[in-house]
């Protein structure tokens, strides 16, 4: 989990770890189930060391564990980092070159049929699309989780369309040979 995400979730108000986790779970829906509680506390510890958050003790201790008594508060530096992160336009790049080169290498060395490789990849992505779609049908319409799942579905669709183009292209090459 990226540090800035945890930091930004704290910007609303000083919070205990379990409150942060609940906020993340609401936003992620079924995709948040894999979220590890320990991970958030590890991240909070790092943020504290970096001077981006400070820790208060909760007056009404919510849990028996030490870490659950702590209330995390953004420092001025933390506020600054959140503002920078919100303005940042970094975007994850899908690594298409690796798969593209896999097909080229397989064909050049005659190690495997590129079309079978495309087919196997397609099956895998269709299974993921099915899982994402089932999850989307299960969450309330218009919820935060539904919007996230819609994004995942659209990306998978785009990838599947590219695979279709790969298959058409390699089929044409095979005919020419």
């Amino acid at each position, binding site marked *: 989990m990226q540090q800035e995400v945890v930091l930004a979730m704290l910007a609303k108000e000083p919070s205990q770890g379990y409150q942060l986790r609940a906020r993340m779970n609401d936003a992620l829906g079924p995709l948040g*189930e*894999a979220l590890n509680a320990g991970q958030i506390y590890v991240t909070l510890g790092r943020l504290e060391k970096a001077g981006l958050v400070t820790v208060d003790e909760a007056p009404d201790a919510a849990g028996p564990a030490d870490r659950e008594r702590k209330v995390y508060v953004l420092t001025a530096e933390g506020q600054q980092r959140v503002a920078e992160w919100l303005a940042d336009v970094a975007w994850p790049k899908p690594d298409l070159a690796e798969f593209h080169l896999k097909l080229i290498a397989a064909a050049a060395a005659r190690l495997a049929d590129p079309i079978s490789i495309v087919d196997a990849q397609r099956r895998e992505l*269709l299974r*993921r699309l*099915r899982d994402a779609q089932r999850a989307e049908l299960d969450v309330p319409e218009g919820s935060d989780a539904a919007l996230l799942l*819609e994004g995942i579905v659209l990306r*998978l*669709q785009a990838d599947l369309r590219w695979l279709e183009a790969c298959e058409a292209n390699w089929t044409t090459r095979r005919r020419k040979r």
Partner: protein
Amino acid sequence: MSGSGTALLRARQLRKDYGKGEGLVRAVDEVDLDVAPGETLAVMGPSGCGKSTLLHLLGGLDRPSGGELWLNDKRTDRLSERALAGLRRREIGFVFQAFHLMDELTARENVELPALLAGRTPRQARRRALTLLDRVGLADRANHLPSALSGGQRQRTAIARALVNEPLVVLADEPTGNLDSGATLDVLRLFDQLHASGLTLVVVTHDERVAATADRLVSMRDGALVDETRLTGGSRGNLSDLL
């Protein structure tokens, strides 16, 4: 009939040619296909690959040039026009990309029509139509004309109509082709429910979202089936793999 196995719909060496001599086009090229009862089968392929023609042959909307076709252990490719019309009316439900609803009839009347043509009484037809419109989430739109319905609502009306005579199989040709993302999701949700209730569905599509809901996916190129993928079975993937 012996040797038919458990397939509800079966094609053997199914062929459809258009034109003659030099201009001969084989739109469907010796296709073998089995659809099991309760199965959802998706057929994908580029436009012009013959997938719609295949669906029309399976549904008796068009005659094959060769090969054999079976529905529920009955040979259907050699039926008379009259028998074929009866088969289309009672045993097969159709869903089209452009909905094909009658503009001057309400949603309920559109759903009733095939039931009346199949010989149900008006009372039976109405009861069945209202039950189905409720099932597709359109109970409050029963008396609307198609022009007063959204694309998604029209398609759900068309799906209700396809089900009115309790067909053995529903054949759908690009059912989400004219729908936006939200309406597509409504149709997928409906297909999911129908699948759970045991409906047999064959859907021709270029929409990956529709294909991903199927039990099995076949790809078509130049009239022939070239690849088959079983999508169900095995464990459900870990959702965290998606992030």
